[in-house]
């Protein structure tokens, strides 16, 4: 559990994004304490992914600020250190890993760029990099001997997503923004990834913004749930409160639809 009294590590304040005339995100705010996790849920077109992209500095909002340690960040041109501290995992691991790079290169690129393995200027030895890569891979449950030399296509979808998560973790981020990290995966693999993220929250104080359409996933991992609809944040509550009192009609419908296909012992009509 998080201490909600602690100051925000990461904050989105009044974020608005427009694509032409279309308002994709409309004055949305959230804040995240160290080690906290918020689930941003909603249906397609709600603005969840756009919000994630603003948080990670991939697109600039027309209004609003992103703050780290209370300091506003430049919309896109963040400092290297700021970029290191905020990492993102995308929904589709197939398109987020360079198909022509080995796992070694995929994982080490960020470490070298951000000098996470030693002082600037002193390039770490291949042994040190390899050791760190294997450590990361074992953290995400990938432990084959020859794994570092293989390319993404040699792995299954679940394995690729784990590589993408290992890459994000390689630079010791403080905030992980995960956009539907398990949606492309089988349920058994989903379980492993969610367990991994929960462990990282505890062991490393990683803060998490989890974008998901799946209320079960949000419930498994998040302290708070924010429901987005049509670019607006319509609900923002502690997770336990949300499930007993979802609030507006839209949130009730969402919850009812999720329950309709959940596996509680229920009988068919």
């Amino acid at each position: 559990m998080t201490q909600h009294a602690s100051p925000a590590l990461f904050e989105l304040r009044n974020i608005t994004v427009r694509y032409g005339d279309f308002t994709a995100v409309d004055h949305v705010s959230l804040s995240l304490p160290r080690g906290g996790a918020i689930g941003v849920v909603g249906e397609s077109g709600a603005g969840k992914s756009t919000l994630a992209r603003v948080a990670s500095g991939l697109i600039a909002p027309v209004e609003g600020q992103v703050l780290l340690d209370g300091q506003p960040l430049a919309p896109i041109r963040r400092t290297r250190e700021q970029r290191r501290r905020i990492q993102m995992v995308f929904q589709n691991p197939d398109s987020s890993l360079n198909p022509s790079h080995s796992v070694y290169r995929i994982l080490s690129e960020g470490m070298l760029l951000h000098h996470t393995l030693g002082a600037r200027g002193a390039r770490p030895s291949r042994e040190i990099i390899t050791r760190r890569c294997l450590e990361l891979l074992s953290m995400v449950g990938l432990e084959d001997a020859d794994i570092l030399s293989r390319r993404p296509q040699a792995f299954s979808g679940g394995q690729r997503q784990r590589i993408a998560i290992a890459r994000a973790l390689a630079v010791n981020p403080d905030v992980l923004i995960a956009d539907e990290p398990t949606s492309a995966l089988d349920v058994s693999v989903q379980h492993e990834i969610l367990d991994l993220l929960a462990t990282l929250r505890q062991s490393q104080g990683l803060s998490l913004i989890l974008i998901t359409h799946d209320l079960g996933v949000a419930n498994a991992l998040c302290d708070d749930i924010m429901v987005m609809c049509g670019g607006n944040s319509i609900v923002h509550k502690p997770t336990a409160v949300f499930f007993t009192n979802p609030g507006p009609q839209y949130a009730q419908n969402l919850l009812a639809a999720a329950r309709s296909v959940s596996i509680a012992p229920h009988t068919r009509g």
Partner: protein
Amino acid sequence: MSEANSNTGPIIRVNNLRIHASASGRTLVDGVSFDANPGETVGLVGESGSGKSLTLRAIMGLLPEGVDLDDAKAIAIAPVDAAARTEGVPLRDDSHNPRLAMIFQDPVFSLDPLTGVVKQVAEVLRYNQRIPSRESKTRAADLLISLGLPESLRSSDRYPGQLSGGQCQRVGIAIALATKPDILLCDEPTTALDVTVQLQILDLLADLRQRLGLTMLFVTHNLGVAARLCDRLMVMQHGRIVETGATQDILNNPQQEYTRRLVNAILPIPGEQDQ
């Protein structure tokens, strides 16, 4: 619960279905056997690569390139004795060879993006039921509207890109129904949809099954979706059926380790016992 009619045997009989990759010879579906009775909804569930979609496609005769069916005789579709049906109103009142139709996972990409949806449904009515061109348009619009698409389609057709994912799936269902099928094969038809839309489509399918007496084979990776619609489940893993049984038995009392893992991996939605 739909009941098998005692006068008739299974409408679909799959016996030792084997499918392998043409190039590598790797076995993809490894001796799958099952029956489906008229009016029954049978779910094929499992994770990616389990062979569930290939099994469905083999029954439809729509195997993708690069895979081979070992023996086409493994699949038998029995003639329908319409008079013997107990439930629903059969689409055709004669005895005949059953027709199969299929709906697909990606509702947008399974439609022709450059043709209006009324026109697409009308085409099927024209070729499949020999309905004259002008009448086919009206009938197509009727069918689409009866499935929940907007009335405005009568006056102006729309392209798939102008419709939502859920609406496109309704068009896919309309195209399937336009062939007057006895058997509807569903390949993850709600996987690409939002949960509230998923619920609408599942309710629509349940309603059609009831009204038209359809036999359904339903492929899904989502046990919750399967639970809502299916009488019986077959759990597939590595090309084989590892467990089969009545839906509630499988969910409440899985016998195989793999099935247990699948059931346990489902994330609960808190508070559902209150429902």
